[in-house]
């Protein structure tokens, strides 16, 4: 081989490698420019407390701080960093933050509070007129800091965040403090990073200022969120509704969806398929979906499912059927080879289902004994149970009984493999709209039917993995729909 030729080829190869590396670097730099929003955290604690607590601490889970205060600040910064990697904004996002004593008792505690400190409407480049946006998002869209500064971060910051400095101490959920590591290895402790990610999301815009309980808009204008809140029953968005209509909509369990392109497109990559459904002939729900709570015992409901007539147990003087004791011959005959309808109350769900199973029922529907929706799941454990069971609402139970009193009902209990857990039949993700209204939890969270669990459900689950975007989570997708997706 000719040495010069070799060197020439080597040089050419190195040049190409170098060019590729430079292109990669520029691309990374461009990506970083696009993706990284600067976050400024104002430490609002006095010396010696909160973020400045000098109590020695052992580094844990990647958090190298050697004092409690340093570790808190590191965890705070770590969560902020995770969000900064997801967001693009030319305007720094400012957070006023502190660890302070917050209300708590031996068995419960306020972990923290956070949210938008300021909001803006009708700013330059706002997509929707006469609409409130959280300050951080408004600044990002307007490409400028919109507040007339007072000079005091407490007023001027975009987000307020305060967390409980006493957590884990005597009389404040003693022994169950914050886990300050970054690796999510929290065990029985409360993972601070997860809580922070959730609360920061509210502050960034994962919330509406419209009051779901009264239907009233904040200072007479909708929040950007309301443009995407779509009610499947009323067939309109919250901005198209009156206060009274929004009140009704806020109770439309698994009927209030997020109608945003980013979330709907990402949902199939995030949510698992396979939703248990109950269909009846005649249709006891008049076209609405019969919501189900699943059982923690017995076999899973399958896609093949069970198709059978419904038989009602009636073993009480008032006509209800509790099935807490072995069933008599009449009740046994009523549910043999059928899907048994049993009322909730007086004994464990497993006892009811086992008694129905013992006389030849194919499956069990437990009708709730108090109004409310969605139906909770059926708890309990009994390895001897071999038939599936599900829970229906009190209202659906009454409808079913009404039809059964005059004729027969055929039912199919099966998993619909085409549907996403936590979304409607068109793939739009449910917002949390329980009935009765859950003050403070309704509307500004994803519905609890979402599976795998989502960061922005009202109940913060311990299996969350510090993810905010697909393929694990839909939080960022929703923020993108509201305006965070725009390029810089």
């Amino acid at each position: 081989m000719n040495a010069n030729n070799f060197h020439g080829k080597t040089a050419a190869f190195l040049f190409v490698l170098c060019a590729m590396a430079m292109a990669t670097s520029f691309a990374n730099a461009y990506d970083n420019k696009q993706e990284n929003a600067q976050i400024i955290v104002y430490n609002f604690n006095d010396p010696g407390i909160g973020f400045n607590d000098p109590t020695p601490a052992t580094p844990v889970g990647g958090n190298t701080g050697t004092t409690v205060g340093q570790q808190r600040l590191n965890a705070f910064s770590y969560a902020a960093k995770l969000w900064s990697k997801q967001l693009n904004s030319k305007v720094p996002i400012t957070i006023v933050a502190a660890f302070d004593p917050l209300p708590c008792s031996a068995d419960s505690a306020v972990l923290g509070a956070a949210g938008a400190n300021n909001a803006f409407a009708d700013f330059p480049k706002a997509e929707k007129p006469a609409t409130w946006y959280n300050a951080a998002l408004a600044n990002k869209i307007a490409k400028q800091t919109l507040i007339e500064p007072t000079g005091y971060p407490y007023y001027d910051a975009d987000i307020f965040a305060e967390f409980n400095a006493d957590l884990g101490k005597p009389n404040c959920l003693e022994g169950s403090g914050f886990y300050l590591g970054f690796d999510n290895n929290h065990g029985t402790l409360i993972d601070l990073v997860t809580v922070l990610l959730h609360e920061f999301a509210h502050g960034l815009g994962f919330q509406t200022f419209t009051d779901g309980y009264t239907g009233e808009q904040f200072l007479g204008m909708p929040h950007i969120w309301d443009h995407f809140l779509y009610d499947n029953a009323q067939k309109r968005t919250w901005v198209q509704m009156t206060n009274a209509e929004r009140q009704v909509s806020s109770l439309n369990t698994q009927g209030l969806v997020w109608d945003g392109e980013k979330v709907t497109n990402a949902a199939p990559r995030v949510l698992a398929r396979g939703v248990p459904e109950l269909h009846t002939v005649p249709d006891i729900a008049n076209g609405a979906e019969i919501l189900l709570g699943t059982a923690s015992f017995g076999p899973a409901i399958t896609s093949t499912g069970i198709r059978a007539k419904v038989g009602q147990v009636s073993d009480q003087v008032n006509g209800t059927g509790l099935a807490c004791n072995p069933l008599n011959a009449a009740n046994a005959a009523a549910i043999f080879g059928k899907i048994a309808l049993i009322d909730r109350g007086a004994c464990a769900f497993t006892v009811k289902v086992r008694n129905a199973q013992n006389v030849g029922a194919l499956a069990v529907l437990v009708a709730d004994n108090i109004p409310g929706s969605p139906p909770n799941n059926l708890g309990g454990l009994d390895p001897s149970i071999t038939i599936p069971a599900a829970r229906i609402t009190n209202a659906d139970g009454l409808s079913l009984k009404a039809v059964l009193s005059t004729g027969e009902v055929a039912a199919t209990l099966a998993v619909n493999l085409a549907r996403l857990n936590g979304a409607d039949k068109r793939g739009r993700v449910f917002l949390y709209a329980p009935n009765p209204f859950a003050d403070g939890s309704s509307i500004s969270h994803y519905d609890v039917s979402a599976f795998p669990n989502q960061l922005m459900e009202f109940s913060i689950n311990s299996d969350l993995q510090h993810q905010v975007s697909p393929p694990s989570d839909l939080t960022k997708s929703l923020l993108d729909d509201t305006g965070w997706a725009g390029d810089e």
Partner: protein
Amino acid sequence: MKSQQPHLYFRRALRFACLVTVTTGFFNTALASDSEVAPAAQVDLSAVTVINVANPQKMRDYAVGQRVYIDPDTKEIREATLEEMHEVAKENIRNRESLKARPAATLIPAKSGARGARMSAAYRSYSVVTRNNDGTLSEVCVTGQEAANKSLAAGTAKSNHEEKGATHERE
């Protein structure tokens, strides 16, 4: 040879740039791939700036109730007097005792013709945790101090993760 020097300089410069680029690119890639699940021992927090606020307690007291004091002569924002701070502190206690008096948000001036509002605590999200009978913890998120106190008093936090979606067939 001299005629080749600019070329050599260029090649040296290119080699250096390449080295820097490769190193930077690798570093950037390493940072970009810094898993959210399993962080490295040294976690890059460069996108986050922490500013320690001087005399925060004074500002906090001053800020309670989110009010501004304007000097009548200079029209500038001024610090609250001790008497004013005490009055605000007392008012804050009264508000905590009567949480139904949820303060509405305050309209604030904004740039570029925008409309602005400052949010009260009624619009903040509160995380509340409750210890269950079996010793496990349940965390819920509610909006507003009033809802948080209700959850705290009732211990109504309920977990759902162990039950939901875990008992039926999925793809």
